[in-house]
């Protein structure tokens, strides 16, 4: 839409004597537009990553070997970090993609023994400061044949109680 608005006036107001110029502009513009569209389409096909849940990844065989993004709740007890070789291993529990109270969802997922779990393996990464119990991990990588998720990228979110909770201590003491 945006490209049209400057093409139009030049095209419609150019008199006949400029017909040759006009064709050059139109052809040049179309070529450029085509190049950009091609770039975007090929970039999209090459860079697209399905964002799925742990459940979907584990149950659908079509995702095996494909680069996907998954999201899960980090179980803090399972974090093993080899600081010398920079290898991180931990387990995440399945959480839905959409949630209204992220902190609660993460807490419930980690403490739900029936939630699907997935072992995650990352090499060459320094253990991020945010990799903690009940953090949300958003991982990019592939599911290996051994059922371990080999991640190449790790994004973490800690919905710390900043916004949602109440001053617990105050609550407890006044409750007495």
């Amino acid at each position, binding site marked *: 839409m*945006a490209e049209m*608005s*400057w093409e139009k*006036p*030049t095209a419609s*107001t*150019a008199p006949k004597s*400029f017909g040759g*110029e006009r064709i*050059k*502009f139109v052809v*040049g513009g179309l070529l*450029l537009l085509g*190049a*950009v569209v091609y*770039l*975007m389409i*090929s*970039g*999209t096909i*090459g*860079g*697209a*990553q*399905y*964002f*799925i849940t742990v459940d979907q990844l584990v149950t659908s065989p079509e995702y095996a070997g494909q680069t996907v*993004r998954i*999201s899960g709740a980090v179980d803090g007890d399972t974090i093993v*970090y080899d*600081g*010398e070789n*920079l290898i991180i291993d931990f387990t995440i529990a399945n959480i839905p*993609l959409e949630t*209204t109270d*992220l902190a609660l969802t993460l807490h419930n997922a980690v403490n739900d023994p029936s939630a699907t779990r997935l072992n995650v393996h990352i090499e060459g990464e*320094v253990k991020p*400061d*945010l990799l*903690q119990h009940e953090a949300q991990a*958003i991982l*990019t990588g592939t599911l290996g044949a051994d059922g371990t998720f080999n991640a190449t*990228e790790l*994004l*973490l*979110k*800690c*919905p*710390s*109680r*900043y*916004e949602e909770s*109440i*001053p617990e*201590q*105050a*609550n407890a*003491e*006044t*409750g007495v």
Partner: protein
Amino acid sequence: MLAEIGLIACLFAFVASLYAILASVYGERFAHSEAMVLSGRNAVYLTFVLMTIATGGLQIALMTEQYQLTYVWSVSSPSMPTFFRATALWGSQAGSLLFWSYLITVFAAAATFLNWKSQRRLMPYAIAYMMAVAAFFIGLSLFIENPFERWWVLPSGEVVASAFIPAGAVAPAARQLAESANGLNPLLRHFGMAIHPPMLYLGFIGFVIPFAFAMSALASGDLSSNWIKVSRRWTLVAWLFLSLGLLLGGRWAYDVLGWGGYWGWDPVENAAFLPWLIGTAYLHSVMIQEKRGMLKTWNMFLVIGTFSTVIFATFATRSGLVDSVHSFARSGIGFPMFLFWFLLTIVSVWLILWRRSRGELKDEHRVSGIFSRESLFVLNNFVFVALFVAVFWGSFGAPIVSELFMNTNITLGADYFLRVTPPLFILMYILMGIAPVSAWGISAVGRLGVSLLIPLALTVLSLGLFVLGGMTDAGALLGYGIVLLSGWVVVYETFRGVQARRKARNESPLRALAALATRSPRRYGGYMVHLGIAVIGLGVIGSTLFQQETQRTLAVGQSLQIGGYEMRYDGLLANQVAEDGRLMDIAQIVLLRDGAEVAHLRPRRDFFPESSGMNSMTIAGAHSTLENDFYVLLVNWETVSANSATFKVYINPLINLIWWGSFILIAGTLLAGYPRETLPARVREKLQLAREGART
């Protein structure tokens, strides 16, 4: 007390902003009452004063540790130093929204004060639009994300947050509140974080002024170059702050996030980059409208598109629409913000199309000659809009479309951006090299080639230096060459200007340069910005293509070699206590080059014992030279003996050019926006006519 004052000031500011809209529009259009229009103007000032009180109230509450305010309780704690107490104003959603609304009223008051006389005809509608935006954001603070909520203990013993005192409730004990207070997110306790958000906000919000003037021109029918003149300068102001915000954000990421990079194509980073792209397109195409009376409709779309993008980006960032390290927590402001963005965009587009259909946005010339400056500007706009579309699609388009229509959730990673944007950036740099030497109207290809000869020769010479320095990668050399050419062109053009003045008036070079800069600040300011962008480009190519990294565990006294440096580990200082209560483990590193000590580095890990959630951060040690940065992270160590520690080391070539280029860019923007420009005779005439028109 402070909470009541803030709340009441906020409420009155909301009412005053609504009054300003009504009085301005009704007084101008229907009642034709100067008194009413003036009272609308005064309401703008009143809104500003009231919001100063409201924001000041929250700031004082933060400084004086009024932990009964939930906002103060959630972003500060007794052990925090004063400086971060002050910056906690924008540490979380509610406070930063209030601050954001406040900045809108600051801009609105400043624009009203500075432009009232010169733009009398545009002002009433401009006020209406500025105040509509202000009212919306103040309303969000009042009704959804209230920063003045306080903790109350109900008779039942339950603790609730409420702006008003619930029946029978009492305030919780001060000591308990102070003890349980959260403290600011440690990652935000950095000098860069203290300035980055306000700069970004100023950049975002600054675009409200050009938007309001554009809308006012459409609404009032005064479509002469008046609105272009005002909006260009305000766009420059906003653009400067936005550029600063982006650069500071990059610097902060580089210093604090510990991944050796400064830009990750994260959706929220992109959200800030999008208005920059479209605003840059506008700053260029506005020149064609001023000089040639062309692209009028297009410029309207750009200026309104910029602000529409700002609101969309704010919505995307603050509503939890995208997953990103930057996102605010999900909150109830998503839907109202989306609705506001949608209405604003629909109304703007409708107004443009309406004026256009009445033939009021007709161009006075047409583009002629493929290598004329007009065509190159059009091409420039094409590049920026293409970048905009590509980045928008990658960050928001693909995820939203896939979720709405394909029932899947597709995101595009950095791969997409690294594939799609470089060709467009290359085209941008090529244009930067050619356009400054092209002429308005029809320009001959031959003449263009001749004026590029010397810059081309300089480019080849500088590439020779790169080759001598060991650079053999042909692709990289081509990239460097294109960027260098764009820089040499503006340097040589400035040099030619200086030479001409020296010949004509026998001035000293410095004097001639100063005279040029004051005579045509826009031209030479623009050249300087180009130079800054070229220098940044060199830094981006160097640090992206030739970054080296390694990781190694070193015993005390042991060394590692990388990129011509030798790094020796001399031991660890564990559990150092800082002023704000953080514990620091600091590695002591000696950096050597050719056997000589060049620096002592102290990469460290900070731990915040009192914070829940994010409670530690990794601070890199860096040694910066023009050639590269030696950047080292302490990633692991033995806490007890501290005999050995593991480090991750990056060599980032040319990265400092990014920061140096940004200084050139800032200086250039200041020069270009310096308010003493000589307008072209055409514009002066029109201005004069408009003023007379306003008087009669």
